[in-house]
């Protein structure tokens, strides 16, 4: 038994650390570590820095401008970035559409879109969920009807993350009404400038604007924009949703948040005790440390299985469930421990002068915002169904 990375992997880890120390802008770290929202420019700037180093598309093969890294190297990179407080990369182009195009796209599509993802000319968003099709994605109703060289799209998508910044959207649309709902779905690429598209913001529980509704009214999209064969979009989508999810446990993000907690707990005093010495909060914090350590090793075990054979569906589902539980547990402790200091919404007033520990300002909004972790990307209930289906298979 050996939990250590190989010599090559350790050298790679050192290289990543050195790069981050040199190139990760402090103002971005300050934003992520205080839980403030990143702007479009923030995310684009970090993408550009990584792209200049050739490290933006971790999961793509080298011939398409990717890194060609092993699964272990990808994991090391993601974890080091999270620990260093780097902004989360925008997954829609890099981790979702890119691999899909590489696997199912035509040569023209690859040549057209992959470079634009890397250099930031395109910001992709995702059009999968609909008001009536969330967990049951296959019941989606947005339809695309053939009209000569075009499809005409009508319908509505929702929960489109950061769509307000995007210029393109990849969608699942119904191209055929067949008996089996999965069989009549196609995967299409849509330019958001096309007439007939309206994007409306959805305000979230923490007041943030992170997701959107997208309405399609007679939107004409060239037939050449389909990825994979017509009516085979479900296969494409399944590949996208199950493709390479080594970072799904979010160990690096949880580790960073737990570090932030410890720092805050040392700095903040309440009722004569530092929170770090408060027995009940301290007990919760050390339990979360144990949880995180177990998650870290479980994640490495799953990683080793992926490296040595094919990825197992239940690994990524179990990692998603436990990873979100641990992260939400840490953010809940962070909020809870601040007690009365977490109550004022000190951010919403420009002239506010309430003296809060700076750590307290975003504690509640960050907690509320991250309730999404157990809902999106396949809710934890859906993940349990996937695991149960495998465990109880005859």
């Amino acid at each position: 038994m050996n939990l250590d990375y190989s010599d090559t992997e350790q050298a790679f880890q050192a290289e990543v650390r050195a790069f981050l120390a040199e190139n990760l802008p402090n103002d971005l770290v300050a934003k992520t570590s205080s839980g403030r929202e990143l702007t479009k420019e923030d995310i684009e700037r970090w993408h550009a820095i990584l792209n200049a180093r050739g490290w933006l598309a971790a999961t793509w093969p080298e011939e398409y401008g990717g890194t060609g890294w092993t699964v272990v190297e990808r994991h090391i990179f993601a974890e080091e970035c999270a620990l260093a407080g780097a902004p989360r990369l925008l997954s829609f182009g890099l981790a979702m559409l890119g691999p899909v195009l590489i696997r199912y796209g035509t040569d023209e599509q690859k040549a057209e879109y992959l470079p634009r993802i890397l250099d930031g000319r395109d910001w992709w968003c995702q059009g999968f969920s609909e008001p009536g099709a969330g967990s049951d994605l296959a019941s989606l109703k947005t339809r695309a009807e053939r009209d000569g060289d075009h499809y005409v799209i009508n319908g509505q998508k929702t929960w489109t993350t950061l769509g307000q910044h995007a210029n393109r959207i990849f969608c699942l649309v119904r191209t055929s009404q067949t008996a089996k709902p999965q069989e009549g779905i196609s995967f299409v690429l849509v330019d958001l400038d096309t007439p007939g598209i309206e994007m409306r913001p959805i305000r979230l529980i923490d007041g943030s604007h992170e997701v959107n509704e997208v309405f399609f009214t007679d939107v004409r999209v060239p037939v050449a924009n389909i990825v994979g064969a017509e009516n085979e979009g479900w296969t494409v989508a399944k590949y996208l949703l199950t493709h390479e999810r080594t970072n799904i446990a979010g160990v690096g993000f949880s580790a960073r948040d737990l570090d932030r907690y410890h720092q805050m707990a040392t700095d903040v005093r309440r009722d004569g005790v530092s929170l770090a010495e408060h027995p009940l909060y301290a007990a919760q914090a050390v339990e979360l440390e144990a949880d995180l350590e177990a998650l870290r090793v479980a994640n490495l075990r799953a990683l080793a299985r992926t490296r040595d054979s094919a990825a197992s569906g239940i690994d990524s589902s179990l990692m998603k469930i436990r990873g979100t539980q641990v992260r939400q547990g840490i953010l809940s402790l962070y909020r809870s421990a601040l007690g009365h200091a977490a109550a004022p919404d000190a951010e919403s007033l420009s002239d506010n002068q309430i003296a809060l520990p700076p750590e307290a300002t975003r504690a509640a909004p960050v907690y509320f915002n991250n309730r999404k972790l157990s809902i999106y990307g396949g809710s934890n209930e859906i993940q349990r169904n996937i695991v149960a289906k495998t465990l109880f298979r005859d």
Partner: protein
Amino acid sequence: MNFERSEDHAMLADMFGRFLQETSTPERRNDTAWTAPFFDQTAWSEMVKLGILGAFVSEDLGGLGGSAEDVSVVFEEIGRALSTDPYLGTLMGLRLLAESGETDLVKQIMAGARRPAFAVFEPEISQDLSLIGTVADEDGKLTGRKSSVYGAPGADLLLIAARNDQGLGLYLIEDVTSVQVLAAPMQDGGGIADLLLEGTQARPLKAASEERIEDVLDLGRIALCAEAVGAMDALVSMTTDYLKQRKQFGRNIASFQALQHRIVDMTMWVEQARSITIRAVASYGTGDQRRHTSMAKNLIGRAAELCAEEAIQLHGGIGMTWEYPGAHYAKRLIMLDHQLGGRHDHAMRLIAMKKENAA
């Protein structure tokens, strides 16, 4: 043994509940709860005319009720309707003024002419009154910083707990322009403020002792527990209804046993929350007051968190949106634990009581 509400309490709940249903709407909350003075002034005046504040003070002190049960009946409706108006600060301020024999001010408050807020905690003090650092000199000049003053924005009577050479005293500032009131909305709406006292002139009140103040804080805690019960009850109903109407995989998601069981657990916790609140209400003013109030606030903290998180999860994305009222109930239930001591603060208080009793 009888857990039925009296006819008077049933009528009060019904009348006030109907009033709140009409006035505490999501639209009005959006318009008022996060913008100074962080409450609905029109609805507040109408509420005063209905005489609801009478429930906070006993008849001999100018009110119409004043028992912990009266208070809990009112606050359960506040929770059910998710009102973010300044009831908690008014309850505690009014109570202390009444106990100090400030009959004229009590009358004015009952008539809606004035509104009090109570400043006791400080940036680093949220529970232990012995640590309060704000001081009063012999002329009644106050120096210090207060925080978590609920309902202070727009209030025109400020009650301040401050240390003098006899211990903890209670002071009244009638000219609120002499105080720097640093106002903000709370995360879940409603007003909160820090107060900066820099030799601010105040008048000492009679109801002054750590004991008296702790009693009023306990009443505030019981009020919050009752509010939580009302909010939880409403949220569990909303979640159950949502599961019945939301269709996925060709059926109502209420038909999934895994989800049904979670509603069952939430329902179980609402009953436990209601029961521990009844315990605390019945013990108010007895030797068990402190212990049962802390038990209630601790259990409610846990039950409210479970109900809030499960409600969001069971709604899926909808539960994460500002537009959906259930999200605000969930938010209120979480943030309730950040007022007048959370579950861990009250667990510590219970441990301290056990140690005291053993010694």
